[in-house]
């Protein structure tokens, strides 16, 4: 165990960066998985080679993969960088890449989306807080409209060819592995990456975009199975069930249900982290699964997400059931055998040490590995705010703050000025504070601040917003709470 912790420490800096990048990539994809599934289902049923071919319905397949999916990804990526405004400009600019190229622009969307949002954030920063009150909407709309048009043109002429070339090169690399029967070697990189919680980044960041293109060409792709195959994890958990000790052994059967049937692979990562040798079992299992699929020329027609056996079978191409099922069984068997040998060889020592398999330590290590994004957010709710609304705000975008009062003429305007002043002094950018009459609330505000007597009415008008009540507009401690919240949010986002 000592060696492991040293390893973790020395590789920490780079790993944290890679993982943050991975978190960011998967953060762009994960919220849109539903759209991928919908597209996968429509494709599976209605394309000419599908289960129930239907030419007119199948017309959706093309536009969905060319426009819908990349634009959704771009919008999500833009939102992650700069809220709703970021999402809009990311979507505008990504149209340039899409129209400027021949292939589905997933990588282009993942690149141009966040970049456009970042540029808008910088542009807004130039005149943040300097716009005369009442003109913010005008300036905001035209600045992002003009920048959006420019970025779409730039993407059309400049980025699309680069992304096409990059995408071709990456595809070439994978194709090279395929042509030389070396694709199983990918598992040597994929399995350790998975256990470090780069699973979603690897699957959705690398394999999904290329795989989707393969599907467009040949109706299926083996790439969807390289990471999502639940076999290797199943084998490791089975080995713990039979040869593990203590808590690890007792919990493994339950983990199997969550991992194999539920598709949440994360559940087995702690078991590998507490016995790092087990990564060999995962690699062995993974390579076996890939090798079987390559041999049978089998694949999935869409990403299996989550990587549950049900999702895998649902997305299996009609001609591929034998190979895919064998690959799951084979990979589970191989990883089970290797893991069993490793566990048995160390079993006596583990029992003597009274080590409960060290699961609780490994679990906490896993949580640390998972990076700060989630823990920071939950900690943020606890830090410095006593307000339930502010706590609820922890998971929200908070770039559009609206003060509302009855007429939108007096108190809300003054409250907005005071808060805007505080935000400016705190050096925060990318946040707009405006004021409105409650009657004019349109539900788009992230955070609505009202006098305590008016909060109930404001909640009715803008139910999706976070609401904060104040009793004193000039000197409310709530303002400092809001600024603290924004500050810590900005800090945590800046580290992404």
């Amino acid at each position, binding site marked *: 165990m000592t060696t492991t912790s040293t390893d973790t420490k020395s590789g920490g800096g780079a790993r944290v960066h890679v993982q943050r990048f991975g978190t960011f990539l998967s953060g762009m994809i994960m919220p849109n998985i539903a759209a991928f599934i919908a597209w996968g289902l429509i494709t599976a049923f209605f394309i000419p080679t599908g289960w129930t071919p239907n030419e007119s319905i199948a017309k959706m397949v093309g536009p969905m993969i060319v426009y819908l999916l990349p634009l959704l990804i771009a919008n999500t990526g833009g939102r992650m960088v700069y809220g709703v405004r970021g999402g809009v400009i990311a979507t505008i600019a990504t149209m340039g890449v899409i129209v400027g190229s021949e292939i589905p622009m997933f990588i282009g969307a993942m690149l141009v989306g966040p970049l456009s949002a970042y540029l808008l954030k910088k542009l807004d920063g130039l005149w943040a807080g300097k716009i*005369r*009150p*009442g003109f913010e909407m005008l300036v905001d709309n035209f600045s992002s409209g003009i920048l959006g048009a420019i970025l779409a043109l730039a993407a059309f002429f400049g980025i699309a060819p680069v992304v096409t070339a990059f995408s071709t090169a990456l595809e070439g690399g994978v194709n090279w592995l395929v042509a030389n029967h070396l694709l199983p070697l990918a598992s040597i990189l994929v399995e350790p990456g998975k256990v470090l919680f780069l699973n979603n980044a690897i699957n959705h960041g690398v394999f999904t975009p290329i795989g989707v293109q393969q599907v467009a060409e040949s109706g299926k792709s083996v790439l969807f199975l390289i990471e999502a195959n639940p076999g290797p994890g199943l084998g490791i958990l089975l080995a713990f069930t039979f040869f593990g000790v203590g808590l690890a052994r007792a919990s493994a059967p339950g983990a199997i249900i969550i991992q194999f049937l539920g598709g949440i692979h994360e559940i087995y990562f702690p078991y590998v982290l507490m016995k790092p040798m087990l990564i060999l079992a995962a690699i062995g299992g993974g390579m076996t699964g890939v090798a079987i699929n390559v041999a049978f020329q089998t694949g999935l027609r869409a990403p299996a997400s989550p990587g549950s056996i049900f999702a895998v079978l649902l997305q299996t191409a009609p001609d591929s059931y034998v190979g895919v099922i064998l690959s799951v069984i084979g990979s589970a068997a191989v990883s089970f055998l290797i893991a069993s040998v490793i566990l048995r060889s160390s079993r006596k020592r583990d029992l003597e040490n009274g080590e409960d398999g060290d699961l609780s330590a490994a679990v906490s290590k896993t949580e640390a590995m998972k990076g700060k994004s989630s823990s920071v957010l939950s900690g943020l709710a606890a830090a410095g705010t006593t307000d339930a609304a502010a706590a609820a705000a922890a998971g929200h975008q908070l770039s559009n703050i609206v003060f509302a*009062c*009855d*007429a*939108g*003429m*007096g*108190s809300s*305007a*003054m*409250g*907005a*000025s*005071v808060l*805007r*002043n505080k935000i400016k002094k705190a050096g925060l950018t990318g946040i707009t504070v405006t*004021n409105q*009459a409650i*009657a004019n609330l349109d539900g788009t505000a992230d955070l609505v601040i009202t*006098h305590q*007597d*008016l909060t109930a009415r404001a909640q009715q008008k803008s139910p999706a917003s976070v609401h904060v009540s104040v*009793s*004193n*507009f*000039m*000197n*409310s401690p709530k303002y400092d709470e809001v600024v603290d919240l924004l500050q810590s949010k900005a800090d945590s986002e800046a580290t992404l």
Partner: protein
Amino acid sequence: MTAQILELINVVADGTAATKDEAIREAGELLVAAGAVTQAYVDSMFDREASVSTYMGNFLAIPHGTNEAKESILHSALSLVRYDTPIDWDGNPVRFAVGIAGLNNEHLAILSKIAIVFSDEDEVEKLIDAADAGEMYSLLEEVNAE
């Protein structure tokens, strides 16, 4: 621009009102006298006050009309009255009443200056200590200059 909204003539250093209602009337009459609003607007200021208090904190209240009464506004204007004896404003002590008539957000620039001044207790102290309306006016002007 800001000078047109809040004119020195509408800044009063020694208000005569002793109750909240009198103070609202005093603020309203200054706006009427400035030709900014009709008498109907002053009435709506009481309606507005009845729904939710316009007490803002830090000795400041901002009596103004309702959303519906915006038709009674002829042009945007502000008035500022200081009281030596705190007025009981729904249980809160008020030393300053800012009467507001705002159209098309023209008054927001100066109102936001006032807000920032009043959010700083040291600045409020300076306003309380100001010798006359002229000094009060220039304290707000200083903020304008920043």
